[in-house]
């Protein structure tokens, strides 16, 4: 079952809907690099529930047609520069959402239902940007209610600390990845290491493990989440991120920066 990041990238076809974690969850930069190398096109990204560096790199490289997300940014470093440019140019469509609406949409997909009711949100102009959301009286309370449709991504891609030979993947407390693995049709994972142990055989590990049942392929990719970092393993490379945030403001320097990143990896 083990593979390489390039093989994972090869599984994701142009035009696919691809769910990606924000920078603080598990980011498979190792596979993002391969998606850019192979010249992926027309991807539709779904933020879990936000998007970060992975999305900005893919957008910078022209791989993305649209995004559905609660936010997109480089965190403390500000706006995602390549996205900002693509958005101004009209090159990337944005389906505006809010964190709990994305969680609810994924939960609906997890449970095989068309939609989920969502608390709150009514009163926000956001509702007006989503013709696919439904407003109407709650059938149980009679109060105004909001229904959001299921989100079933074609692919989930993430990076985690440990996988095993059977394809089980330990995610610890990053449980949004489990929800997304249930919701997505196919899940591709890179890991720091592949352990000899069966992650399901010990409840201490099993409690934070996505069973192989949901995982199509696992690739070993040490430091695969660099430069954003991986919880409990290594932190972000702040100098790299600041350099990217600066370089990505202009198309030429952005391209040069990404080309150098592709060469290095």
């Amino acid at each position: 079952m083990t593979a390489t990041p390039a093989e994972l990238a090869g599984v994701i076809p142009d035009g696919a809907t691809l769910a990606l974690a924000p920078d603080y969850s598990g980011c498979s930069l190792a596979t993002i690099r391969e998606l850019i190398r192979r010249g992926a096109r027309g991807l539709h990204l779904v933020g879990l529930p936000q998007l970060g560096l992975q999305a900005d790199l893919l957008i910078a490289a022209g791989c993305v047609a649209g995004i559905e997300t609660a936010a997109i940014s480089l965190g403390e470093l500000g706006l995602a520069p390549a996205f900002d440019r693509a958005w101004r140019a009209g090159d990337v469509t944005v389906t505006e959402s809010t964190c709990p609406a994305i969680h609810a949409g994924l939960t609906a997909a997890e449970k095989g239902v068309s939609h989920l009711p969502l608390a709150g949100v009514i009163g926000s102009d956001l509702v007006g940007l989503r013709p696919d959301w439904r407003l109407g009286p709650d059938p149980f309370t009679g109060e105004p209610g909001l229904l959001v449709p299921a989100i079933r991504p074609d692919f989930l891609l993430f990076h985690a600390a440990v996988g095993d030979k059977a394809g089980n993947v330990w995610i610890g407390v990053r449980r949004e990845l489990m929800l997304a693995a249930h919701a997505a049709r196919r899940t591709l994972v890179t890991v720091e290491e592949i352990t000899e142990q069966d992650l399901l055989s010990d409840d201490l590990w099993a409690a934070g493990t996505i069973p192989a049942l949901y995982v199509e392929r696992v690739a070993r990719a040490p430091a695969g989440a660099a430069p954003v970092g991986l919880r409990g393993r290594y932190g972000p490379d702040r100098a790299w991120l600041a350099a990217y945030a600066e370089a990505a403001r202009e198309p030429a320097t952005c391209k040069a920066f990404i080309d150098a990143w592709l060469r290095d990896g």
Partner: protein
Amino acid sequence: MPGCVMAEPERLLVMIGVIARLLTGLGHVAVGASSPVPAAAALVARELGGGRPTVSILGSESSNPFTDGGRELFDCAAQGRLDAFFLSGAQIDATGAVNLLGLGEPGRLRRRFMGSFGAPYLASLVPNVILFRTDHGVRTLVEKVDFVTAPGVDGRWLVTDRAVFRRAAGRLRLVSWHAGETPGTVRAATGFAFETAPGAGETPGLETAAAAELRGPVEAVLREVYPAFAAQLA
């Protein structure tokens, strides 16, 4: 990035003191993305309260009690288990409405910020939502936001680097102004008209005990989540 355009450090300390006082006695306070000032204030309140309120900082590994993934903060709020949250916005208006999304007409924005995050949801489900801006000015504090990410409600607080407001009868009113400001200077820097609340006066500064916490245990957490901000305070 609204929360990160920074005022002078002493103004930030006043803001931290104001917010920490508003959190006293609460059970559970959560801090979202791009909110270093509220994060500092919540941690100060926790240290001064002997561990209460519980503070959940999104994106922190050491100060985040959630174990059910990204949805847990939102579920927690819907269950009535979250007492306070913080929102900023590219624009905040006279009614306490915030705009996180962008400038221009909804659906045809001419400028877009990071996005809505969980604001449209949390603003309607959390009993104490505290608005903040670290760059009080006529372009950020406006009569009417271009896009209502979340509407305001009576009782809601707005804490800026110049002053403190609270909404009553549908509009924000000036409650206090920080040292160096007057009602007049605040008015000149604010894009909406406002009344002054009865009993309004100068904002109390950060208490000595709070300042000590801020230099001690709080800074360690801030360095993890908001390194640039922690460096500015240090």
